[in-house]
């Protein structure tokens, strides 16, 4: 059993035409469910002049109006309290409350039934099995076990797989490292920011070389990073472990995963989710590989508060090839490339913070932390990059390489400020390194 490559060998290798048929039938099922159980969804579709019977083919799906996070904010805090009209089950069937992290605005509440919570761990099971988690793993999960969904379902999925799970909440970073060492944990789950932070603390504050600990695999989620090659390499070199990416969201579910083949991208779990890519400017659905767009996603089996054609604002693109792992689930190339609200134009040039991260972390003489600040002087955009020099590295040895790589990879010139190692803010969970002050008129 443990040698089986796929969590579900039938679904994960279903021929593409059958997968599409599965997605369509499941989309119809969840659409019918939402239409008949949610006043919000019914009104949304009827305003667009649609009922579920109007969706007769896969191509019709795009007629269904999208849901934006702002719409969810608008209907919540009302009866059935606090979820409002999007709730599809009696309140007494809601067993779990979570809320979004609030990094993009007012948090959105997320109810789940016990079936939905099982579904969460089922989707994470696809993730972890693909990344090599097996019953002989001891998985240490160093997060706060709080109101954000984060790694809760990863915890339950690891248990489902038969792993031994060590909850690392409450402990501070040094205590967590000592516990990993004490218990010979083989795997951890954390944000890329925290993976690097733990390595930094272990090495520079505790005299413990992370690569000599027993960790052989790390699952990253919560922010892009594990699919940015230089960030992945930093993490893998620091820990002597394989690092795998996963992308999920409170209001969506655990929708994608990198497999052990590390294909420079992530599989979409197309048996449980329908992903569409929409051109940011025209709204046209992008089918072909190589064109970036915004992800519109449907969770095909989530019942308490369905996620149907949710405009996630994540920017992705399809890979042209299927993965050598044998899964028929398509890959999104390079993982989640950024946020549509972060990818912006500076001096007329499209800027992706991920591209800057790739450059900074590819230079050994620079620390892990950096900041990007965009502002305006008069009518002219300016962009400042703050970086840290590693101890005993001089600015003069790094500056030209950094400027050249930034120019090459982003087509922009930067005001660069160099700081001593340890000067820039450290983040414990998710980092917010990109600041566009033009939007705040500061």
């Amino acid at each position: 059993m443990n040698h089986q490559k796929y969590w579900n060998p039938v679904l994960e290798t279903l021929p593409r035409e059958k997968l599409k048929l599965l997605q369509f039938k499941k989309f119809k099922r969840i659409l019918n469910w939402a239409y008949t159980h949610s006043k919000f969804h019914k009104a949304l579709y009827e305003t667009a002049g649609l009922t579920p019977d109007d969706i007769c083919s896969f191509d019709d799906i795009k007629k269904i109006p999208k849901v934006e996070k702002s719409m969810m904010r608008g209907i919540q805090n009302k009866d059935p309290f606090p979820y409002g009209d999007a709730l599809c089950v009696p309140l007494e069937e809601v067993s779990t409350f979570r809320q979004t992290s609030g990094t993009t605005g007012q948090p959105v509440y997320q109810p789940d039934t016990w079936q939905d919570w099982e579904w969460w761990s089922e989707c994470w099971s696809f993730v972890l099995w693909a990344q090599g988690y097996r019953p002989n793993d001891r998985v240490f999960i160093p997060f706060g076990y709080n109101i954000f969904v984060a790694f809760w379902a990863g915890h339950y999925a690891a248990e489902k797989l038969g792993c031994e799970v060590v909850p690392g909440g409450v402990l501070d970073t040094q205590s967590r490292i000592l516990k990993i060492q004490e218990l010979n944990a083989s795997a951890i789950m954390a944000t890329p920011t925290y993976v690097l932070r733990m390595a930094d603390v272990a090495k520079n504050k505790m005299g413990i070389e992370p690569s000599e600990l027993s960790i052989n695999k790390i699952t990253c989620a919560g922010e892009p990073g594990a699919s940015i090659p230089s960030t992945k390499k930093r993490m893998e070199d620091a820990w002597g472990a394989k690092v795998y990416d996963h992308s999920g969201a409170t209001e969506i579910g655990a929708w994608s995963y990198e497999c052990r083949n590390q294909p420079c991208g992530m599989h979409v779990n197309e048996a449980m989710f329908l992903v569409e890519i929409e051109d940011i400017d025209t709204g046209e659905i992008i089918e072909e590989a190589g064109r970036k767009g915004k992800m519109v996603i449907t969770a095909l089996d989530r019942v308490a508060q369905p996620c149907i054609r949710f405009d996630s604002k994540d920017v992705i693109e399809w890979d042209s090839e299927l993965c050598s792992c044998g899964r028929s689930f398509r890959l999104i190339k390079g993982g989640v490339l950024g946020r549509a609200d972060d990818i912006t134009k500076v001096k007329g040039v499209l800027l992706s913070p991920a591209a800057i991260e790739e450059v900074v972390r590819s230079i050994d003489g620079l620390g892990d932390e950096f900041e990007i600040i965009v502002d305006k002087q008069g009518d002219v955009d300016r962009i400042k990059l703050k970086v840290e020099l590693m101890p005993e590295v001089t600015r003069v040895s790094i500056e030209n390489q950094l400027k050249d790589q930034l120019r090459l990879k982003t087509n922009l010139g930067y005001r660069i400020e160099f700081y001593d190692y340890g000067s820039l803010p450290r983040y414990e969970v998710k980092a917010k390194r990109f600041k566009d002050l033009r939007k705040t008129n500061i």
Partner: protein
Amino acid sequence: MKNCLGVNGVNDKILKVKQLLVELESDAKQFPALDRNSKRALASIKMLELNISDIVAFDLADS
């Protein structure tokens, strides 16, 4: 590999277990332990349905 799983046969068993759990749940009105545990078991059965029964219901198994 896929066909040696015998999805149709597995699905028949899933449906039988589900039917039994539905009956247990309906028997359980004055017995909280039976009621709540049956409900939880039905949620786990739903995961079996998503993994196997949908393949059969939507006629996606290899012929």
